[in-house]
């Protein structure tokens, strides 16, 4: 089983590394970049919603704060390193504020508080024109050149995004397998019991929010450099709902779920939309089908169906003779 997973991982990695060479055009390489940073965003939300049981409907607000921080600093004339570090710091600070305010509740209460916070950020993005540019947003020019390696070309940006994606996935994998990851999942399943066992449930959730905020900020920085533009549209409720749908459709609380979910949403939005005018309808229909057929999400649902099919194929155990 372990070797099968390693083989699948190697094939996946090989496909990603060679992707610019077998994709039919640069447009599709750009789509792949979008999938990768959207997957990082979804992984960030998955830490909270999937592993922590805390569903946020305001994550686009966190995303927006980091994205606007990048844009504002670059527009103000600071260099890329300062802009990136400021964006990470702003994203973490915003995550801390989000956590302190929203962790006063769980369940519906948590959803409503995060929704309200997200709407506040959207309102600020829309109205605080001197900082955000309002509806016009902030336009950027240029991308960083880490170690002299320019990220201007489509392929270079894709590879930089891929490296950050792999590092982010590794971070999440290490976290969920760690004692703290186990503690977070424990607080999702039995918070009262965890408290009685000596865990500081609030603090565990707070650090999960911070980790989620870090991944969200990373995704936001990549988004800004990819789009070269940030506007209130990236911060609105639809953006929060979209990333939540990526997590739920792929499979919350799984490592691959958010990646599969991000792939589904971006492919329908950016590729299928070129062929089908009413792509929103198609996306909605796909989500409805997932909820009905695989309520646990595409990844765990596929695993379940695969196991079911495998069990049916396997020879039935020999019948034992009945002693009468």
């Amino acid at each position, binding site marked *: 089983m372990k070797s099968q997973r390693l083989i699948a991982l190697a094939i996946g990695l090989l496909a990603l590394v060679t992707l610019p060479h077998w994709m039919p055009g640069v447009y599709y390489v750009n789509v792949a970049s979008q999938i990768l940073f959207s997957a990082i965003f979804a992984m960030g939300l998955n830490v909270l919603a999937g592993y922590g049981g805390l569903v946020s409907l305001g994550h686009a607000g966190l995303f927006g704060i980091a994205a606007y921080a990048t844009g504002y600093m670059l527009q103000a004339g600071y260099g890329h390193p300062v802009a990136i570090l400021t964006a990470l710091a702003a994203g973490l600070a915003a995550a801390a504020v989000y956590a302190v305010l929203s962790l006063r509740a769980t369940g519906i209460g948590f959803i409503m508080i995060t929704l309200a916070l997200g709407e506040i950020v959207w309102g600020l993005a829309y109205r605080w024109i001197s900082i955000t540019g309002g509806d016009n947003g902030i336009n950027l020019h240029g991308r960083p050149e880490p170690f002299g390696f320019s990220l201007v070309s489509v392929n270079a940006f894709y590879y930089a995004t891929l490296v950050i994606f792999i590092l982010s996935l590794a971070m999440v994998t*290490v*976290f969920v*397998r*760690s*004692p*703290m*990851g*186990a*503690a977070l999942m*424990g607080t999702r*399943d*039995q918070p*009262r*019991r*965890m*408290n*009685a*066992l*000596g*865990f*500081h*449930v609030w603090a565990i959730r707070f*650090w999960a929010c911070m*980790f989620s905020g870090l991944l969200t900020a990373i995704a936001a920085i990549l988004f800004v450099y990819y789009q070269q533009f940030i506007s209130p549209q990236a911060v609105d409720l639809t953006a929060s709902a979209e990333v939540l749908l990526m997590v739920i459709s792929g499979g919350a609380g799984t490592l691959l779920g958010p990646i599969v979910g991000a792939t589904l949403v971006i492919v329908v939005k950016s590729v299928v939309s070129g062929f089908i005018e009413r792509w929103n309808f198609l996306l909605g229909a796909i989500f409805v089908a997932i909820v009905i057929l695989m309520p646990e999400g595409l990844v765990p649902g596929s695993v379940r169906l695969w196991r079911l099919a495998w069990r049916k194929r396997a020879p039935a155990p020999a019948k034992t003779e009945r002693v009468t």
Partner: protein
Amino acid sequence: MSALTVTNLCKAFGGLRVTANVNLNVEPGERRLIIGPNGAGKTTLFNLITGELTPDSGSIQLLGTDITKTPSRRRPHLGMARTYQIITLFPNDTIIHNVSLALLGLSPARWNPLTDIKHQGHLIDDARAALEQVGLSHIAERPLTQTSYGERRRVEIAMALAQKPKVLLLDEPFAGLSIDERRDVQQLLLAIPRDVTIVMIEHNMDVALEFAERITLLHFGEVIVEGNRAEVVDNPRTREVYLGH
């Protein structure tokens, strides 16, 4: 020094008094049974002792330390462990993972976000030892969903014992068990060393009386009878409110 001292403990939910001036003094190593009819306030008393509920007045001392205002999450670190009347485990995990979580709760490693939990060797070894104690080590890797009710009861007890408590609170450990399972759990409880003080709520008098040294009878949140087995069983008030005539 007493293992557990409860002094004038009061708790009311709105106009309903659920704990009224309860006093309890449990000596180290003692086996104390708390009995009372449904609604007497037994589980509420446990919830107050463990800090899940905040008392309106009164105090609680654990091994001579006042813990009345100590957060409930800190109390296991001071030597208190409990089990629940309604089994409260982690259903998506294996038995050994459940017990490992109990151990992790008291370990500084619970803040570690970098190392694989499976590489916490001492944690796994201690979890296995706790499961050995309750006779479940042979099914340690089994998912909890594939275990019987009686086995889950024993996992609850293993989780509490794994924390090496000085005071162990057992909330109806025999509830819902078959006769055989009840006997197994009874043997298990009798084997717990004397350095662990046990306070137990139980309705099943056959097994509970055999276990208890002193008994406290609660009724409408008040202690109405307290004494050794014979004193409590022979007391007319016990017969009136609990055992029946």
